[in-house]
């Protein structure tokens, strides 16, 4: 008994450290979950959450009755899948490259700069992209494509590619830094041993670096999967300049909710959509986690 208590005492400073975050999470994330019921109510501010009348699944109707439902769900899920795959591959690639650099100063420079786009607001990015793609004055149409201008904002063909490129440019830094941190902790002697045994760079990466990074890759993967129902509103609304002709390839659940927000039904409907996105993410992460637990149990999140 005393031994157990002594061990507990050792961790008290850590628990104290955790308290602010725990309090924040409880207040900001758990207590508001009561609000989930507003997805099933016709929410009126005057009646509050408890007083508003129940309407069952009516709030979900507008989403499911929409003719565009398949389009927005398909776009949201496929784009997120593409983002996860592309960001992981490019992130790993960048991380490996950066850790190979000998010059310490340049290494620090590159590490900081890949994170820079992440800090930019999507609004600023939308103007940068517009500078490239503007049909009248844009850089692309006026230089490389001078004789064959492309009507970027009326032609949906290129947009999946454009959006993936922009998203990767903006967010890859985050994952790359985590991978860099992971690579740096790998024991140098493993690489030396492999070099002595005659393994080339590619073999070393394949057999040492990647397996050691597997925990980080899996963690980031699982975190992204839980957000698969959500999309970056700025990315899908601002970058295509909300152009109607691109709707089929740039509309996601979030932009759809926004564009119908002006019509009546506001809070109940938004709550319903949010609930649906969260449910999808929840189910997927449980599935993904149990899959990971089967394959390599110590890497599962829970």
């Amino acid at each position, binding site marked *: 008994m005393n031994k157990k208590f002594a061990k507990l005492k050792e961790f008290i400073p850590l628990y*104290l450290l955790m308290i602010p975050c725990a309090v924040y999470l409880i207040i900001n994330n758990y207590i508001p979950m009561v609000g989930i019921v507003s997805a099933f109510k016709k929410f009126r501010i005057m009646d509050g959450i408890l007083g508003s009348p129940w309407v069952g699944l009516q709030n979900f109707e507008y989403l499911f009755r929409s003719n565009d439902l398949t389009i927005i769900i398909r776009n949201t899920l496929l784009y997120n899948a593409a983002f996860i795959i592309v960001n992981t591959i490019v992130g790993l690639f960048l991380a490996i490259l950066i850790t190979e650099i000998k010059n310490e100063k340049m290494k620090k420079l590159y590490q900081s700069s890949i994170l820079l786009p992440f800090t930019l607001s999507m609004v600023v990015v939308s103007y940068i992209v517009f500078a490239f793609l503007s049909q009248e004055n844009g850089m692309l149409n006026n230089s490389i494509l001078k004789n064959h201008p492309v009507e970027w904002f009326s032609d949906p063909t290129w947009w999946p590619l454009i959006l993936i490129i922009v998203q990767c440019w903006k967010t890859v830094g985050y994952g790359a830094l985590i991978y860099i941190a992971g690579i740096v902790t790998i024991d140098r002697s493993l690489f030396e041993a492999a070099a002595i045994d005659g393994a080339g760079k590619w073999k070393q990466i394949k057999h040492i670096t990647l397996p050691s990074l597997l925990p980080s890759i899996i963690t980031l993967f699982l975190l992204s999967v839980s957000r698969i129902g959500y999309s970056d509103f700025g990315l899908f609304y601002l970058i295509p300049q909300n152009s109607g002709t691109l709707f089929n390839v740039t509309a996601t659940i979030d932009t759809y909710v926004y564009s119908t927000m002006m019509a*009546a039904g506001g809070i109940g409907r938004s709550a319903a959509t949010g609930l649906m996105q969260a449910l999808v993410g929840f189910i997927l992460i449980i599935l993904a986690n149990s899959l990971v637990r089967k394959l390599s149990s110590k890497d599962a999140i829970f």
Partner: protein
Amino acid sequence: MKKFLSISIALIMVLVILAGCGGKQQNNSSSSSNSSSSSNSSSSSEEPYTVNFAYHAPKEGNQQEVNDLINELTMRDLNMKVNLIPLSWDTYNSKFSMMLASGEPIDISFAFSFSMPSFLDGGYIVDASEYEEYTKDIYNLLGEEVKAGYIGDMLVGFPMMNSRATPSAIFVRKDIFEALGYKESDFNITTDDYSSFDKLTELFAKVKQNYPDITPFDGFRTFGLNTITYVDGLGDQFGVLENYGQSTTITNWYESEQFLQFAKLNRKWFTEGYASKDIAVDKELGQAKMKAGKTFAIFASYGPNALTDVKSQTGYDVVMIPVSEKMKSTTAVSGAMNVVLHTSKDKAKAFQFLNWAYTNAEFNDLLNWGVPGKDWIVNENGQADYPPGVTVQNVHYHSDYGFIYPNQYLMTPWAGSPEGIWDNLKNFDKDALISKAFGLNFDSAPVTAEISQLTSVIAKYENPISFGAVDPEENIKKLNEELYNAGLQKVMDEKQRQLDAWLAKQ
């Protein structure tokens, strides 16, 4: 020792963070809370009521002095204090909805007609007809127009005093226009004859030829988007009374000859290079483009003071080429209204204040021009102007948005306004075509689901087709297919039903 230190540091951190939480809550409210229940040793035995008045202001933060002066007036006349809550155009959509949703105690605010369906649905608005005894003066001022504030049986609010028609025109730069040898009388554009619009195309061709660095036509507004000018949609674009409201049958404007003609006209401009290639996606207003010297002509709705307005917005002298008749519809009247909200603690007092706001000249002047003597003075022509040394760059408080305040007709007009400007505004709609549905406000409650669907369909097609960025015929066909799939017929039937019932009662 080390252990003690680490535990105490951890404790201090926790306490600091918790203290920080507490402090933040106090700074949360965006409105200044200084004018609330402060001491008042006046003769009245009642505690003065504070009216939270949300109004449009171009920038937030300079309200304190104006607020104090207004308080002096209101204490004298009504034994009330006012708490000014400024809202700017862009925050109206985001901030205001948040304020309402979080139940902030606002008594009175302005609201646009497109927000009405969601505000009514959320139960935010008080039925003004229940407080008629307090608002007699407003009824007198508005006369017949009070009817425009009704949605169903509920009087939603009171329209601002403003010109009641919203015709449209093309504004062109005077210098280039005259250099090319044109006169205003060369243009006689009417929707009865679509070939009259071709003169514009001809003008743009000349501009492009002689001034290759300037885009002939640009800006984020054009014919196909300005439904408020050409048809009476009873509040939205889904099912309208065509030809300036001169019909009593609800039809689909997007299937009309008019919409097709407009689309074709813009398509021609787009393909010939008279309109910017980005026109369908660039959100910049034409006025800003003209100010930068980048465009020759822009499309805009206008009021009686149009030429002065556009000059002050762009810095250039312009010639106005009207492209529509004037129409007076309910939407033109009820586009912006003053409403009393359910979060008001004392609605009777709020209506009293509103009544006073419509009749007190000093209040309207304070709200619009600021502190007399500091932000504005009365010049020798009897008009308001900047005091010596003060300019538009350094003035402390200057709003100049009279049309969104209760009663701009009571205000001192700004220097440079033509003689009799208020009469001009009042008479602006005297020669307007009055829509057959004037006075009816469509109650969209039965079809809200369809309307939200239709809104998202329109969002896909409206801009590309109206600006000519895509082929009109093919895309108009697609648009109408999707509109009908989204329930357009149901909305049109409901509108026709309400219209017929209302007409029968007249």
